[in-house]
């Protein structure tokens, strides 16, 4: 892909430069730039506002300019123990969120790859039916089964544990679907060559299929990590101990706790946490970006 597209771009730019200004291009770009500003502006405002102290924020609302409390707010947000029990700080919540995000994404990938492997490569009697049953669960989001799931986890004594937080979420119809489509596009001859080369089902999976799927894995990893990172309802139900709080839920807790005590909420710290909560997904996306695009668009392996 890249080898082909680069020379093409090089060949066309000099020509484009000589052309007169095209007003449709200018129009397109105006729309795109406005759109980009519209998207980025709130994030920027959050960042700018997180550098003011809480009184300033309470008095004047969101800010466009920077204040002098940046380091203070971020330091407190990350390292000052808070909550009712004084056990949780930002860095612990960040940890919890990372564990949830990675556990969620990795778990989903493992489970859905294995499910797709079974459906595509083994002559199961009801493989197609099984696949469509899995597929229809797409129509039943977590929220639909949240009460029974909660019951089950509670009874198993898994409330307030990482496994209780992660395991009920890792079955993935989306992942199974994507891996199934991908596996079906792997040439039959490759499977047969591996069979003749003496690779059994496990070896074939690990030696051939997993390496071939790596762009697909990266793509699904990004989607699932962000999805897991942003989970709110399930962690809220299953974690009652503050030391298990995730960032997304902890942000609210900070402001909540103080509102109840009739003080001015720690807006600065809450906003600082918001910014911190944005960073890991952004880093993941940047890191896997190339693979991500390839995984979703590349047809030849």
């Amino acid at each position, binding site marked *: 892909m890249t080898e082909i597209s680069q020379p093409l771009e090089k060949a066309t730019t000099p020509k484009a430069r000589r052309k007169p200004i095209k007003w449709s291009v200018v129009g397109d770009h105006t729309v795109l730039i406005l759109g980009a500003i519209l998207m980025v502006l709130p994030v920027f405002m959050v960042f700018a506002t997180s550098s003011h102290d809480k009184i300033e924020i309470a008095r004047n609302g969101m800010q466009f300019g920077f204040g002098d409390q940046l380091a203070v707010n971020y330091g407190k947000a990350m390292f000052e123990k808070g909550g009712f029990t004084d056990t949780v700080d930002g860095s612990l919540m960040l940890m919890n969120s990372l564990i949830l995000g990675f556990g969620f994404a990795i778990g989903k990938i493992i489970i859905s790859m294995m499910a797709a492997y079974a459906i595509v490569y083994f002559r199961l009697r009801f493989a197609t039916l099984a696949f469509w049953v899995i597929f229809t669960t797409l129509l039943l989001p977590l929220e639909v089964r949240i009460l029974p799931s909660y019951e089950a986890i509670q009874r198993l004594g898994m409330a307030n544990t990482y496994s209780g937080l992660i395991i009920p979420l890792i079955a993935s119809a989306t992942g199974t679907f994507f891996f199934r489509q991908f596996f079906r596009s792997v040439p039959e001859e490759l499977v047969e*060559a591996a069979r*003749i*080369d003496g690779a059994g089902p496990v*070896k074939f999976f690990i030696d051939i299929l997993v390496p071939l799927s790596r762009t697909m894995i990266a793509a699904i990893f990004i989607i699932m990590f962000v999805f897991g990172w942003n989970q709110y309802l399930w962690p809220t139900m299953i974690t009652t101990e503050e030391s298990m709080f995730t960032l997304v839920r902890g942000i609210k807790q900070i402001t909540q706790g103080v509102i109840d005590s009739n003080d001015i909420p720690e807006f600065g710290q809450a906003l600082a946490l918001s910014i911190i909560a944005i960073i890991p997904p952004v880093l993941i996306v940047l890191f896997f970006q190339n693979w991500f695009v390839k995984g979703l668009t590349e047809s030849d392996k």
Partner: protein
Amino acid sequence: MAVVKLNAVGKTYPNGFEAVKPSSFTIADGEFVVLVGPSGCGKSTLLRMVAGLEEITAGTLNIGDREVNDVDPADRDIAMVFQNYALYPHMTVRKNIGYGLKNRGTTADTIEAKVQEAAKMLNLTELLDRKPSQLSGGQRQRVAMGRAVVRDPSLFLFDEPLSNLDAKLRNQMRIEIKALQRRLGVTSIYVTHDQVEAMTMADRIIVLNSGEIEQIGTPAEIYHSPASTFVASFMGAPPMNLIEARVEEGEIRVNGGASIGPAGRCPSGPIQLGVRPEDVELGGAGQTPFDISIVEELGAHRLLHGHLGGQPFTVHVGKEVAAAPGTTQIHLKPEALRLFDSQTGKAM
């Protein structure tokens, strides 16, 4: 090194389609057998049954001295070269070649030595650290060969291994594969739809048509004594001329014209007459009129396309024989005439 014996081996696909009718033949140790036939005639199916990739639904298959109907492909001691090479795209050439050995628990040192040896044999030494995507078609083909050779199997199976290459490379690889097989002395089954490949590479050819064996024989036998009109028209380029004729009182005549030659013991009645384009002489003693409409100039020789008794006919002459469109007299060599039943197409 092994004898391969098929005893009424047939394949009916689950949808009820009988792709290979029960077929029996034996391949001698070290023999190079080519399965040839038009696309869709069941060549691959037959080969894949030998490989163990397709279940055998009738008959028994022996490789060496054991029956292998229910033996896993990995345990049949075979190696297969696929049309699309089927190289593992994420592995280097070295790993591709060595993968089969690794799965068999060979030590790393032995694998490396064997891979080096195979690479040397196939001129791949410089390419060992490349990925398949960095190789040309011919090089990929060589790697696929290397993967087969390195295992030192008792049977090679090839499924149209050259059909993705350009003509020049194909000719070259054809010779290389044949030479390699000679050197290693490994029994081989080679599938192709290209009759030139079949003629040039085979010790013995098996011609398949619609899942049925039409003829088994050496290239010379197949070429000179085709068992049916199908074989006659499939093998050879240009193919054997086939024209409607009649046998009357022991003489072959076309459209009631003069006798073309003796019919031997063939009874009177309609027949199909077959004659190879090069078994025809122009002028001289000829007394059969041939209307030349096109002269195809091929350098070393010429092909004269036209009609004999109103039926399409082609003559192959050397470059020293002058020819121009128009009617000329030709002579069909009597010993080269082949007679086929006009109904069944079988040789008489």
